[in-house]
């Protein structure tokens, strides 16, 4: 068991290094032009058609949230799914569809989509001095939210039908989807929950671990699909990973037993002068309580975003070279597509690994919180 774990950890490390190295290079390739953002908002749309291709903008646009779901652009027509915008500003609620912005062209009730660095892509309102202000609260049902609900319904549909299959075919061998998912469920149960939390207490945490695992997995996989309704960078969105990590943090904190808190406040086996008069160890331990979920959040976000950035970087190369000369574009396309396929395959691996790592670490934290004194 532990040897397999070591191998996986080593693999994750290698994958992580590869991702970092590649993402650094693609960031350099994709440095956004400074002057790009200083263009006037009104003429932005027209300008961009004649503007040279900007890989940085394209990539950031693809991996961040948006108020509409852009599917395809044919000529000058943008095919998008408009989504509802909900704002709370100056004590008033505003509801409207994102189509009123005409793909970032127009203003509506003083609100517009910012093109400036800080708030780029977000709804802003201009104050009297011309500064852009974010509305007080922005509850908009964005692209990522739609993707989350989409994956939520898929998961509910899949697992309710699998649960039915288990009830209907009780005691029989699994079949179809059930037999595809069963080894994964058993893997999460035996190698993650049981191994990390322990035989006695694991069952309480199993539903959460399974849900987190499959939620991350399906969103990782859907994120690799390049067209509607996939391709949304859900698990590479820091808000999403933050919520997932917050769930882990809350469950860990609430299931912490006496032993867990004693380890934080008064860690046994540590010299007394590290605790009194300066409570160095308690402060370090308390920081650890918060850094653990923080690391969970950042790891998942960074891994998945980096994967998306690399793939988009390879695709951007085609257009960058295409602008130099059409032939070069086609030439690079061959290499780019080959690399993209390679990265896609790697991303499928990463999708599983990251779902596994997030779930395993969550389970380890639960195990730490519930461990009895020995």
């Amino acid at each position, binding site marked *: 068991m532990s040897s397999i774990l070591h191998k996986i950890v080593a693999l994750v490390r290698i994958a992580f290094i590869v991702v970092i190295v590649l993402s650094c290079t693609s960031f350099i390739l994709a440095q956004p032009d400074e002057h790009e953002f200083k263009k006037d908002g009104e003429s932005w749309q027209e300008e961009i058609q004649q503007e040279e291709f900007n890989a940085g903008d394209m990539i*950031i646009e693809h*991996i*961040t*949230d948006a108020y509409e779901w852009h599917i395809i652009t044919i000529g000058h027509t943008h095919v998008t799914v408009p989504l509802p915008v*909900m704002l709370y500003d100056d004590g008033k609620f505003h509801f409207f569809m994102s189509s009123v912005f005409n793909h970032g062209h127009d203003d509506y009730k003083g609100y517009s989509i910012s093109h400036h*660095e800080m*708030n*780029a*892509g*977000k709804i802003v309102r201009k104050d009297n001095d011309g500064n852009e202000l974010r509305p007080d*609260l*922005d*509850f*908009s*049902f*964005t692209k*990522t*939210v739609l993707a*989350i*609900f989409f994956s*939520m319904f898929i*998961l*509910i549909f899949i*697992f*309710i039908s*699998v*649960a*039915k299959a*288990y*009830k209907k075919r*009780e*005691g029989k061998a699994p079949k179809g989807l059930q037999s595809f998912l*069963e080894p994964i*469920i*058993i893997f999460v*149960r035996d190698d993650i929950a049981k191994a990390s939390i322990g035989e006695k207490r694991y*069952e309480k945490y*199993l*539903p*959460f671990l*399974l*849900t987190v695992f499959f*939620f991350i997995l399906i969103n990782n996989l859907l994120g690799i699909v390049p067209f509607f309704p996939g391709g949304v960078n859900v698990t590479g*969105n*820091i*808000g*999403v990973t*933050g*919520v*997932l990590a*917050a*769930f882990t943090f809350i469950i860990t904190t609430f299931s912490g037993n006496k032993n867990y808190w004693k380890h934080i406040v008064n860690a046994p086996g540590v010299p007394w002068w590290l605790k009194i008069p300066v409570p160095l160890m308690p402060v370090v331990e308390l920081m650890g309580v918060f850094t653990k979920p923080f690391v969970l959040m950042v790891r998942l*976000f960074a891994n998945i*975003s980096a994967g998306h950035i690399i793939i988009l970087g390879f695709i951007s190369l085609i257009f960058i070279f295409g602008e130099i000369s059409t032939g070069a574009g086609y030439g690079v396309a061959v290499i780019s597509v080959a690399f993209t396929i390679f990265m896609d395959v790697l991303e499928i691996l990463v999708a599983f690994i990251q779902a596994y790592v997030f779930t395993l670490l969550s389970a380890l934290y639960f195990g730490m919180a519930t461990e009895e004194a020995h």
Partner: protein
Amino acid sequence: MSLINPGFGLVIWMTLAFGILLYVLAKYAWPAIISSLKEREKSIEDALLSAEKAREEMEKMKLGNEELIREAQDERDNILKEARALKEKFINDAKEKAQVTADSIVENARESIESEKKAAMVEIKNIITTYSIDIAEKILREELKDKKKQKAYVEKLLSETSLN
């Protein structure tokens, strides 16, 4: 940068969606799946255990069977041996009886032959005696046809006989 700046609305929606997902799956999907898995594993384990038990019992029965077969073989051997002994005895008895019968028959036969022989001997003696007397009479008659000879013979006989 918008990449590392979580949207407030998104966090709210995400919490809601993930909360719903967790609730629905934890209520309607996972318990059913986990309990069925557990039950199936238990039933498989039970089945394996009972198979093992059955195997052991079979082993035991096989041992018992072998014992039985051996016993049966022993018994058969015994029976055969006894039967053989009995047969031998029967044959011997019969032989003895037959011998005795045959002996007595032979004895009887010999006895009757003996008595027959004696009777025959007596008869032969009688016949021989009669024949001898007849022959002697005929010879004497022939011998003593003329007077001289008769006289000579009487004289001889008289001379042989001493008159005391």
